[in-house]
């Protein structure tokens, strides 16, 4: 796995503020927001959506943060167990690598 993931520069992306606010409101109400898209990615003409966790990982894929550093940062943001979120981050980074969403 890539140690310091970097977003593929050919991908067009944007966080949707209104959708993010709505997902945040769900979290504050104690609801599950994992199915709520807050970010859009346009890859080779196909649009994808990321939920809040995916979006936060994507934003940190700057070629400087290590996978472990991303996981540690997100554990604080989402008030989650570090080991659990580290597994999610690794799985998502592997998936992005397979899809070509990360720079070589």
């Amino acid at each position, binding site marked *: 796995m890539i140690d310091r993931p970097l977003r593929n520069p050919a991908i*067009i992306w944007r966080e949707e503020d209104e*959708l993010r606010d709505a997902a945040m409101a769900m979290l504050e109400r104690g609801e599950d927001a994992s199915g709520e*898209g807050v970010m859009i990615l*346009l890859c080779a*003409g*196909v*649009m994808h959506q990321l939920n809040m966790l995916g979006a936060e990982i994507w934003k940190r894929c700057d070629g400087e943060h290590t996978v472990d550093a991303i996981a540690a940062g997100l554990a604080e943001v989402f008030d989650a167990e570090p080991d659990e979120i580290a597994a999610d981050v690794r799985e998502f980074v592997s998936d992005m690598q397979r899809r070509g969403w990360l720079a070589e």
Partner: protein
Amino acid sequence: MKPFVLSAPLIVNWTLSFRCNFACNHCYSRAEDASAELSTAQIKSIMDTLAARKVSFINFGGGEPLLCSDLFELAGYASGLGFKVSMNTNGWLLDETRAALAKNAGFETVGVSIDSHRAEVHDGFRNMPGSFERAVNAVRQLRSNGVRVTMSSVICRINADEFVSLVDMAESLGVEQIFLHNYKCAGMGMTNRDELDLSPPEWREFYIKAMNLKAARSGIRISMDDPITATIKGGDAESPLVKGSTCGKLSLNIRANGDVTPCGFIPVPIGNLLRDDFDSIWRGSDVLGKLRNKEPKAKCLQCKHYADCLGGCSARAYAATGDFESPDPHCWFEPV
């Protein structure tokens, strides 16, 4: 995840000018008024508006964008605002100096139009002797200046049987991505439709071959961007979130006078950015609403593929019938 309307388009295609140094047989814009153009300051002001809406990508088309004396200034301004910037050019004016200017202005990519691997065929289609050689030279100059290059090829009767050679040529030139554009029966494309457009069965045959080639090639990305390909089994590795035409959903078009249209091939103004609020256009336009919520008509009513293709290309349907919701005239399906 749930479908939704984006807060703003991701991509804006921008015709800075309808002026052109070519007179191509398929051109959608040759009949347009080439006199009404925005000032540099007006264009920058609109760019500020788009940046505030977090539009990501601006593609300059035309007309020929290199005829605009402020092109590199505008591209530099746009890239400074954080946009990814590209343009489509016929390559005639793209010499070593302009390739370097493109690099300095921050062009993310430049698309060069080449429609055949045979010079005489390309030159004939573009009605410009020597244009093939100039376009190939443009690709080389851009690459040697470190600009990523794509190639645009309009698929029609002159090249449909030879498109593999076209892809081979693009790959040998170091082009990253080739766009095999479907023929649009708009403008001169409508005038010359009988001579140049393929029949629906011929489109099906072309797309099956092109998809097989796309799957087999790793040295160059092959893009078709035609919603009608969703009807071919195995055509999409993944089911796209946005189905049907993407105009008015992911992208929007700005004309030389500031008019906004859903795409370059749908000449229906839905506002003007010198006069109208951008959000009101994007969220409130009845035309965009109709494009985002198409209803099947005619043969689409009985077609099992409608949920995937949403009637195919809205621009083609509009050009052929005056109705976005009519079946795509390239569609080969006849529901039983």
